């Protein structure tokens, strides 16, 4: 008697967003299960960011519904929703002289709690991203990658614990060096295993192949294909969606994408 939709944490149906007459995303179906680690890939302009913004609830949908635990986004109190789903943006424009501690404390806004409780949650989150020792430094002095780690800590502090939470990450590794790219994927994995639904937008197909449990390929505002990365991210799909000739090279259990250049057969435009 178990309804499959009940076990699913976040369920999006028929999402359509139109801006100024242009269809940005159309008829998107997506469900995120607890313990899932989903990755969205696709060329620029495919609608990845629009989809992510729709999934946070910030975009006004032209059609479609999004439910969390079977309850529509619109029926959630904004504070309640904020304790259940969080989103790490690509970059932040914060230009005020906060300390690292203060920035992460902003993530605790939805939790009505004492300063002492905030302190514990903030320090735990900063420990996760390796910035605990620098907690009282000024945020504005940090490098781009360090700022991104501070915001990751802020988002983790916002959700507090993985179970039943939706963690959305928009190109989380874009400004990070290899050490911290690895750290982000470790945290994402850890959260998924502990019962969160993690969804990442990634540009790097190598990363998608390596870390995604499910990959969704977006193309021209629609879901082009969805499934296990090894089955989905074929050279044929890459040629069709990205218009490049590429192949996977397997080495000691890893897959690496080698891009050979433009497609072998030049496309005809008529």
């Amino acid at each position: 008697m178990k309804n499959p939709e009940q076990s699913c944490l976040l369920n999006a149906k028929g999402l359509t967003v139109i801006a100024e007459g242009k269809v940005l995303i159309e008829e998107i179906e997506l469900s995120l299960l607890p313990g899932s680690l989903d990755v969205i890939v696709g060329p620029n302009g495919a609608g990845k960011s629009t989809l992510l913004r729709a999934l946070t609830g910030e975009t006004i949908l032209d059609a479609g519904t999004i439910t969390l635990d079977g309850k529509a986004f619109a029926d959630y109190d904004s504070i309640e929703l904020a304790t259940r789903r969080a989103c790490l943006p690509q970059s932040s424009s914060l230009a005020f002289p906060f300390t690292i501690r203060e920035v992460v404390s902003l993530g605790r806004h939805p939790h009505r709690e004492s300063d002492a409780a905030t302190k514990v949650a903030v320090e735990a989150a900063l420990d996760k991203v390796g910035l605990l020792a620098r907690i009282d430094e000024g945020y504005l002095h940090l490098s781009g990658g360090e700022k991104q780690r501070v915001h990751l800590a802020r988002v983790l502090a916002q959700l507090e614990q993985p179970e039943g939470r939706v963690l959305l990450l928009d190109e989380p590794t874009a400004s990070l060096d290899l050490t911290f790219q690895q750290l982000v994927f470790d945290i994402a994995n850890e959260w998924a295993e502990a019962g969160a639904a993690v969804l990442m937008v990634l540009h790097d197909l190598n990363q998608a192949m390596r870390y995604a449990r499910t990959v969704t390929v977006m193309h021209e505002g629609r879901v082009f294909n969805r499934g296990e990365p090894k089955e989905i991210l074929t050279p044929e799909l890459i040629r069709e969606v990205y218009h490049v000739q590429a192949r996977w090279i397997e080495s000691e259990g890893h897959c690496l994408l080698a891009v050979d250049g433009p497609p072998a057969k030049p496309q005809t435009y008529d």
Partner: protein
Amino acid sequence: MATLSQGVQNTKKPTLGKFAARLPRRLVLAVLGAILLIVSFWSLKSGAVDTDIQDVLIAFSGSDSSAAAEFKSIVIREIRLPRLLTGFLIGVALSLSGALLQGLFRNPLADPALIGVSSGGAMGAVIAIVALPALVATLALPEPLGSAISWFGLPVLAMAGAIGLTFIIYQVSLVRGRTHVPAMLLTGIAVNAIGSAFVGLIVTIFASDEQLRTITFWTLGSLSGANWNNTLLLAALILIPAAFALRQDRALNAFLLGETEAFHLGIKVQRVKRAVIIVSAVMVGATVAFCGIIGFIGLVVPHIIRIALGPDHRMLIPAGGLLGAITLIVADVFARSLLAPAELQIGILTAIIGGPFFLALLIGARRGRANSLGV
């Protein structure tokens, strides 16, 4: 994971400098409160009639009933006290509306005058001054109703002008249900140009009407019109919005991250934005109606607080309100005493001190020092 995080912990020294440890809120507010009390006494004893602290105390206790003491007491209670309270209220209003709008725009350079609030208020005020007495005369309203309408109508029209213009700008800069901040700021600039032209035109046409004062009253401000009636009205128009501002501290903190991030954190973004615009427009409209446009307080005071105490609105709003009041009271004492018996326009003083201060900040920012300007 443990080894990873140990490996990346950097040994670089904290770079925030001496402000790394924020001062406790209560201590800061107590110190500012004490300073406010001191400058208030100083303000009450300063002026054309020679008085000292003793006279101030006598004025409130009534312990000396000699004719000389009685005269001084009247000067202090009926002239200086309402002026002191007006200065306090205007200082709070300018500083808080600055802090609110800067939080809203996430730009520490945002100023009440920037989004058209001040010139909108000035337009409403000059319309009130020209039109209301004419209206009262036409309708042949009996006294005191006629003067009451003229008196009460002035701040009401000024606030209406401030709110109305702010909303027009707000609507113009609304894109797909969200405010486009650069568009809003640029529209503000255009509206300000129209506003000052309008005020200049009306003042020039009706220059004979002494009620209209002068162009400099509107552009440089003055507390010289302070009296008990106006002060009580101002108190209501400023303290209620100020109490509201104090309650928006956490929402404004989240706003500094960006509207999207604030939304993710559970802030009702559009509602907070609307409320902040109305509240700051009411405060600025009220100040413009009675004291003209006084610049720089809303820009410099929140700035000083951010540099000294950090950008947290839980500190910035109460401490900014107190420091704004202190600054305006001190500026008013100087405005009254520097060229005595003549009076300097207070906006000249705030510009003389605030302008270079602000330029220095900009130059510092351009040299790449870590700053709170975001420029």
